[in-house]
């Protein structure tokens, strides 16, 4: 079932474009032929009940599904005119240009500095690492809290700080797109608010795709919202429209909390 939708990219070329993307885990189909345009420098939220395929779809955008045994992706994801699943595309390169922040903060068991420097280091960054680390931590709104203890273990930070460190670590690689898989679901309301403010800041420089369970969060921070249900894209459009005047009954039922 192809869904028609109207996404205004402001005349710019989409940052990502999924065409007929399906994902199978063994025999089970988790994502059913989804078409999706991600406009640049916008926040796109993927919402839907548990098991609807939103995280799976997100993981298609930087080939994270390659790491899951038995997972198979069909269709195309266009990035700068190139299919991410093309024969000559190196998934390592894809993940460098399209970063990811995970649901649970997962810093490395290393110092704050080493966590931030890990990505640039493995990618052969040759500039001044200290400057890059500071910039990245500032971008993630963490610098002021940690600048005098960069050598401390990342595990000494609070959950919210750890998640911002994970965002800083992702930004340090200078990706074009940042994928976030329920980045605030393990955090308290104040830490969540900080992450949300941060996402709005980051929009200036990055394209962000965020999976969230929290519909208020989607409404607060995203420009566009896609509603997925049972592996299908039910509706996609400007966030305001999806939450106030959705075209599909199922979307309305979900955003008003009648199921899910």
């Amino acid at each position, binding site marked *: 079932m192809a869904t028609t939708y109207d996404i205004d990219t402001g005349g710019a070329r989409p940052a990502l474009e999924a065409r007929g993307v399906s994902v199978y885990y063994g025999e089970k189909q988790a994502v059913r032929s989804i078409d999706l345009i991600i406009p640049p420098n916008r926040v796109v939220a993927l919402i839907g009940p548990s098991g609807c395929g939103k995280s799976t779809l997100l993981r298609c955008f*930087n080939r*994270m599904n390659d790491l899951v*045994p038995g997972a198979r992706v069909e269709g195309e994801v266009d990035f700068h005119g190139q299919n991410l699943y093309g024969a000559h595309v190196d998934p390592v390169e894809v993940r*460098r240009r399209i970063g*990811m922040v995970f649901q649970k903060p*997962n810093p*490395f*068991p290393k110092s704050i500095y080493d966590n931030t420097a890990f990505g640039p280091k493995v990618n052969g960054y040759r500039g001044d690492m200290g400057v890059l680390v500071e910039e990245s931590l500032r971008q993630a709104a963490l610098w002021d809290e940690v600048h005098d203890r960069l050598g401390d273990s990342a595990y000494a930070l609070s959950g919210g700080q750890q998640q911002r460190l994970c965002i800083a670590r992702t930004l340090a*690689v200078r990706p074009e797109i940042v994928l976030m898989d329920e980045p605030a679901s393990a955090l308290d309301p104040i830490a969540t608010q900080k992450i949300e403010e941060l996402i709005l800041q980051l929009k200036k420089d990055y394209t962000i795709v965020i999976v969230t369970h929290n519909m208020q969060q989607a409404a607060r921070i995203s420009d566009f919202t896609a509603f997925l249900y049972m592996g299908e894209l039910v509706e996609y459009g400007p966030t305001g429209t999806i939450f106030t005047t959705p075209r599909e009954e199922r979307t309305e039922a979900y955003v008003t909390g009648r199921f899910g």
Partner: protein
Amino acid sequence: MSQTRAPLGMSGRGRDRRRRVAGALFAILCAAATLVGVVALAVLLTDVIMDGSHRLSVDFLTSFASRFPERAGVKAALVGSVWILGLTAVIAFPVSVAAAIYLEEYAPKSWVTRLIQLNIANLAGVPSIVYGMLGLTLFVRALALQRSILSGALTLSILILPVIIMASQEAIRAVPRSLREAAYGLGATRWQVVSLQVLPMAMPGILTGTILALSRAVGETAPLIMVGAVGFLAFTPSGVMDQFTVLPLQIYNWISRPQEEFHQLAAAGILVLLILLLTMNATAIILRNRFRKHH
């Protein structure tokens, strides 16, 4: 109290009391089972210390074996054990860790991999004498390595490979998936993920497994007799192609003699072996703690 509600702990009648007695009995039984091990070790230690401690001296460590018990020592056997152990570690550790990394991080999850896995588990249970025969055929004869330290170390390496591989796999598997994903998500290659994140985190477990396997190797006698360790040696080896003897073999040699003096030597030899083992285990703990601190 209007109703017949007994205070806590006083309601025990019939089934309730039996239940508590059974619980207490079970705890006592488990404690007794634990004691069996502890007591056995204590008895063994006391016996060996009583028999052998008065023979333990610097002379004992620096003298070669001799027909005269008062002049005999463990020098050749101790040095031989250390040589064998060192070489076995150098051979077995990298091979096992590489195999574990391959099986956990690279190998496709196919029936071939499962078959290999099953075989490794089975190999860990093969009697050591069988490895001795393999060593004799393969290393001593086919590869013409003679009755050398190298043959012995290669044989013991194969003997402990499955143990280290399985311990390393456990340790590698215990590294959380989220850390791998984090590293991959930052554009790390598979090798970078393995070498910079997985291995450092798994290293304490791998080291523990290795030292435990080496502890087994240091006590092995049968396979080394097969590959030609000698019971009486009056020199220390100067290279990997030299002949050798090891502590367990020396102990066996002494114990099989009729004279009481040699039995005391054997007890002293056992003490040296135990001290070597304890030193190894202590090293394992120190290494593990150091790795934990760094990662």
